[in-house]
């Protein structure tokens, strides 16, 4: 097991330490000053997440208005450190009720110290699962002895057994009145398209998120329309695969609850779920992707002080579906003075802070074509700077009940000893990752 971090710092954007914890003695307490002076105050903050200053490596990420910085002096496992930081943030979020920012940290010092003590030991990450930690680190922190509420005489949970048992991620004896399972397939589409409309880079990263409210120790089985699973099934049941589309998944990773031996043997995803929310699997797809939108831009520079922008966006998903929160960002030169728009739908304005025209459409129905044309006026500048670089057009959107990969849930079965009935809810959603079209 590699060392992940010698120290963890949480800094605000000004570089002040909000809270920190040293796990090993090999870094000094003042190393964070080096981070502030050598990394935060330089321009390349944000370009590289690992920097080395004075024999120490700083691994950092920014979440909201907080920098999470891991400092190591030995040859540490960077991936492990980042995973640790991501998990830590997720853990904090679940404790703080979803928010993770400077104020949340300031309000929960005691709790955070308790958690930091628990989740890492001498630089080695420990159990970071919120479900388990909540068993013995209660959200209330210190309990007042004069509290009117009597301490409930629940037998103390056997935390040790829990952690070391076979199903370390699920508590025994859960009871729900209504047994429900929610399953979301969330995909984000990354696209880079050239000026002429040829696809330069296109892939989909997806995750299967679950939320379980199930009693007892249920055993779940999930079937998708992916290639391996279907082929295996066809083999077992000796019948030809159905004519429908099969999806080839690359780089699949599972939550620890998935029984991997059964997956390798039978190619079925079966698992005993943890209670509450978790991420069941992640995957990547690089072929056979249905793009939800086509964008046809045309940007003409008319002389030195005028530009004509014309963007046509066409939705290519089913006519009954619709996209929400569509935002098209068309970059314009830095010295833009004014823009006049003509739109078929939505609203548009010029955003000076990001130097682009932002066109927002709240609801974008399928199989339609919307256009934005704008006349941009530029101010004349002192120096003829080098020609404008024309950064790509960016797009944001969410399309519910649509998967760019075509992935579908074929079945989700729940078995429990008591044999109760469960309600399964399945949702699909496709989002834009970095959806860029050069112009």
């Amino acid at each position, binding site marked *: 097991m590699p060392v992940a971090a010698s120290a963890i710092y949480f800094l605000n*954007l*000004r570089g002040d330490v909000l809270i920190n914890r040293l796990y090993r003695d090999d870094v000094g307490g003042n190393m964070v000053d080096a981070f502030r002076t050598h990394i935060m105050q330089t321009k390349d903050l944000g370009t590289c997440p690992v920097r080395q200053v004075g024999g120490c490596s700083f691994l950092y990420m920014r979440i909201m208005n907080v920098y999470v910085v891991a400092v190591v002096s030995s040859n540490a496992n960077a991936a492990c450190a980042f995973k640790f930081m991501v998990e830590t943030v997720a853990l904090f979020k679940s404790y703080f009720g979803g928010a993770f920012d400077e104020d949340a940290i300031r309000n929960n010092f005691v709790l955070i110290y308790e958690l930091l003590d628990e989740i890492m030991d001498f630089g080695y990450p420990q159990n970071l699962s919120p479900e388990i930690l909540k068993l013995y680190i209660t959200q209330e922190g210190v309990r007042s002895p004069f509290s009117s509420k009597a301490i409930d005489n629940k037998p103390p949970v056997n935390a040790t057994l829990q952690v070391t048992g076979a199903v370390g991620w699920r508590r025994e004896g859960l009871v729900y009145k209504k047994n429900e399972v929610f399953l979301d397939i969330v995909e984000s589409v990354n696209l880079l398209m050239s000026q002429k409309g040829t696809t330069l880079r296109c892939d989909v990263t997806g995750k299967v998120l679950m939320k379980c409210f199930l009693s007892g120790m249920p055993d779940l089985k999930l079937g998708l329309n992916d290639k391996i699973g279907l082929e295996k099934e066809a083999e077992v049941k000796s019948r030809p695969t159905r004519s429908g589309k099969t999806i080839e998944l690359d780089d699949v990773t599972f939550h620890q609850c998935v029984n991997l031996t059964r997956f390798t043997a039978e190619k079925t995803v079966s698992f005993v779920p943890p209670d509450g929310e978790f991420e069941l699997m992640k995957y990547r797809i690089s072929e056979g992707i249905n793009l939800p939108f086509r964008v046809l831009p045309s940007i003409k520079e008319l002389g030195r002080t005028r530009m004509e922008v014309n963007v046509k966006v066409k939705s290519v998903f089913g006519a009954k579906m619709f996209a929400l929160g569509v935002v098209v960002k068309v970059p314009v030169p830095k*010295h833009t*003075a004014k823009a006049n728009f003509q739109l078929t739908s939505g609203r548009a304005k010029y955003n*000076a802070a990001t130097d682009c025209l932002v066109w927002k459409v709240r609801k974008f129905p399928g199989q339609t074509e919307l256009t934005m044309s704008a006349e941009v006026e530029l101010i004349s500048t*002192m120096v003829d700077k080098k020609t404008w670089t024309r950064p790509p057009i960016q797009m944001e959107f969410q399309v519910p009940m649509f998967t760019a990969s075509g992935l579908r849930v074929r079945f989700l079965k729940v078995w429990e000893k008591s044999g109760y009935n469960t309600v399964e809810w399945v949702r699909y959603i496709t989002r834009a990752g970095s959806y860029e079209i050069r112009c």
Partner: protein
Amino acid sequence: MALSGMRGLSTFISDVRNCQNKEAERSRVDKELANIRTRFKNDKGLTVYEKKKYVWKMLYIYMLGYDMDFGHMETVSLISAPKYPEKQVGYIVTSCLLNENHDFLKLVINTVRNDIIGNNETFQCLALTMVGNIGGRDFSESLASDVQKILLSNSCRPIVRKKAALCLLRLYRKNPDAVNVDGWSERMVHLLDERDIGVLTAVMSLLVSLVAKSQDAYWSCVPKCVRILERLTRGQDIPQEYTYYGIPSPWLQVKTMRVLQYFPAIEDPNIRKSLFETLQRILLGTDVVKNVNKNNASHAVLFEALALVMHLNAEKEMLSQCVALLGKFIAVREPNIRYLGLENMTRMLLVVDVQDIIKKHQAQIITSLKDPDISIRRRSLDLLYGMCDVTNAKEIVEELLQYLTKADFGIREELALKAAILSESFATDLDWYVDVILQLIEKAGDFVSDDIWYRVVQFVTNDEHLQVYAAAKALDYLDKPAVHETMVKLAGYLLGEYSHLLARRPGCTPKDIFDVIYDKFAVVSIGTKALLLSAFVKILLHSQPQDPDLRERVLEIFKRYECSVDAEVQQRCIEYLTLCAKGPSMVDIMAEMPKFPVRQSALLKKAGDAERDVAEESATKLRVQQQNSTALVVVEPQSNGAGPPILTPSAAPVQKKQASPSDLPPSAHPAALPVGNGHTEVSAVTAEDVSVPSLPEDPVTEPTPPPEPAPAPSGANLLADLLAPLAIEAPPGYAAPDSIVDSSQDPGPSAGTSGLAPMQSSGPADALALALYDGPSTKVQPIGSVEDWFNALVIKDSGILYEDPFVQIGIKSDWRGIQGRLVLFLGNKHNASLTNVRAVVLPPPHLRFKSSPVPDTIPPRAQVQCPFDVFCLRASRETAVLEFSYNNGNIPVSAQLKLPVLINKFLQPVTVSANDFVARWRALAGPPLKLQEVVRNVRPMPLIEMANLFNSLHIGVATGLDPNENNIVSATTFYSESAQATLCLIRVETDPSDRTQLRLTVGSQDLTTTYELMEYIKQQLIDTPPPTMVSPNVPTTIPTNSELTGPAALLNGLI
């Protein structure tokens, strides 16, 4: 200001100030910029108020550090507004946003001029201020006369004239012609009569600038300046608003004294007297008070006065007064004042001879060395270093050594270096020097650079009396439990060399010494191990009779490291093992190192380098200069990374080999050696320049017949060419052969300098040299042909230029474009000094030489380097001549030597594509730019050889350009000052059936270059001897026309 009432502006500023971080600020600013752009672009135009507001915002954003690349038009247009508020904004923002090179400024020159010549004083002030800040050349040309008029006018108020003077200063700086008016100096004198101090201060600033460039015209200002100074120091007629903490206008005082410093010492006794009285008043009237601002002002005046005193070469009495005053300063507790005191004392040291007076304050200065403030410690260190001389050296060095253990790390290296230099320069006895350095290493080993202990080695080696003492001391220090590695190096070296001198003492048997060194062997780095291995072999071979036990142990170490990963250690082990196996006959190889030539301390140079950025005139620098003037020999610092080969004992041959380029035969590498017969084993022992001279003494090898006299010179020549640069680069390289040869034929001249002369000199050649030495009346003849040497140098960059029994002149050159650097190595091979040495270059008109002085005397067995810089002005075939002469005893010897600075040295081959070549070739129409000639009586040679010759002449041959394979086409660039880089194209058409004739075409853009190059190539083709680099097997590789290239044909060509 007009900010009040601009709500938009103050909201924006408070927004920006309230931003939590940089990002928020940037987005706020970007938003505001977009807003401003939209407003400026607005078709309706802006109201005056809005324009003003947005221009203020622009200025604020610009001051926050953001780029401002628009809106200048709006700003500039405000200048021409009729009302004050707008004009003011326009002028202020313009002078912030724009600089003198912006084209926008040209638009406003006229408006500005109107303001300046107008009647409104406020507008005049605004305009003058703006021009004074960003006025450029254009302004200078169109406004200078108007500004002068204002300055000289009587009707203008002082505030305007003040600004006019400063504005004129700016214009003068941008364009010196601005005040290039007849009689301006008289007007300046007239201006100095001004009573208003403000105007006077501004005028004085102008005067400082003027006299900095040329003081001659302004002599008449001197008495006025003295009078102004007098008036100020007396405090007569000074308005209240111009006194600063009771001091009458310190700025004007300082400036006036600065002006006076630009003039050479004042002769007129009256003025001088009144000036000195004034200075005296300043010196006496200044004291340290509590108020910081008052101190600052009075000290600024005082230090300027000190500088003036130093400049005027005042009497000793006044100087001692100054020093006394400074002494008071350095006794103050306030660190700033102490710092100033120390710094000015250091400066005084430089200029005038006040060392004795300063010495009185030595105790105080030493106290400052312990100050908590590092800058004060540095200053006092500097001062101590500067004031050190023979009388107080011991005390000061002692202090420095004590301080060393407490000093911060930043300063330690410098401190160690300085202590080393002082102890070396002012040592009354060398024992003390050795003690100091050993203490230095012990106390701060990490900070003692290698140069310091190399220097000790030089001293010890050169002083026989010191050797025993140093060895004993080294042994003491090495015997301590924890020893720094530098100490191990130094002690290891000293003990290796001189331990046998200690042999009589108790506890100093070779075995004991070996034990002491071996104790440290395990923990030192590879480089040190290599050094210690040499020490071991020396200890072993010096001990007579050899202790078998010791021998056993030493050999065991060698065997253990025989397969060390480090090539150096491995090679030494193998060599030393073989040496030991040879037995006592090899002892001589391990004899003590010979004395070093006297050389400048590398430390001083280093100290000078370290100082350069500290203060421009530091004591160190001065000292370096003094040392330089007395130094006999100036040796260039070692430029290659091989470290100083001079100082590593028997490693000298080995290191030399490393430093050399690959021109040594590969057999020098032990791995490539067939071990088996005695001959090759010997050459495995050391580098071949050591093994070769030892051949005749080697009993295993069959005695080689003495070489024939005839081939000897040429053979030697060839080898000498190969090795001479090496031998020259590493002067003590001759150590090893010397120690062998000398033992048999001391005090003969032995011609050891090149390290290979003994090869033929063991035979008749040496006898010749001896004969020459015995008969002093015989005329000194060069050994070998000067002509041959010259011809070899034509196509090479280094080699021997001249050699006779007493002196050897090597040459090394380096060519880059139009300039080249020649270094002459004058080596005295003789055992006595050569005196009256002169080396003068008589340059032909087309070359410019910059030479450095040649020392008058070359000490015995020393080598002197004389660098020359050569610049090529135009093409010519003439060569420069070196007139070289010296006196050997009383016999004058002189020689006139052609220097190999020919046209080809300034050539640089270029590669040209076929199309390019053809195009350029066609572009050169014909004579005189392109010349063609049929050359006859060419020395016949195969094409490849001709191509080689061309290549060695830096005329690059472009293969494949000409379809006819009997032709050679080449392109090269000729660099000269007159024509800069000239591309020269050359085509040679040969006739395969008659190699003695060819057609030569040369073309270039410059007609003299074409002609000269043509003639030069013809000369080379007709009568060059076969270049030495072409080995005899070349003809055989070209079988086609072998009958023409046979030796007979070659001979034929020669005749």
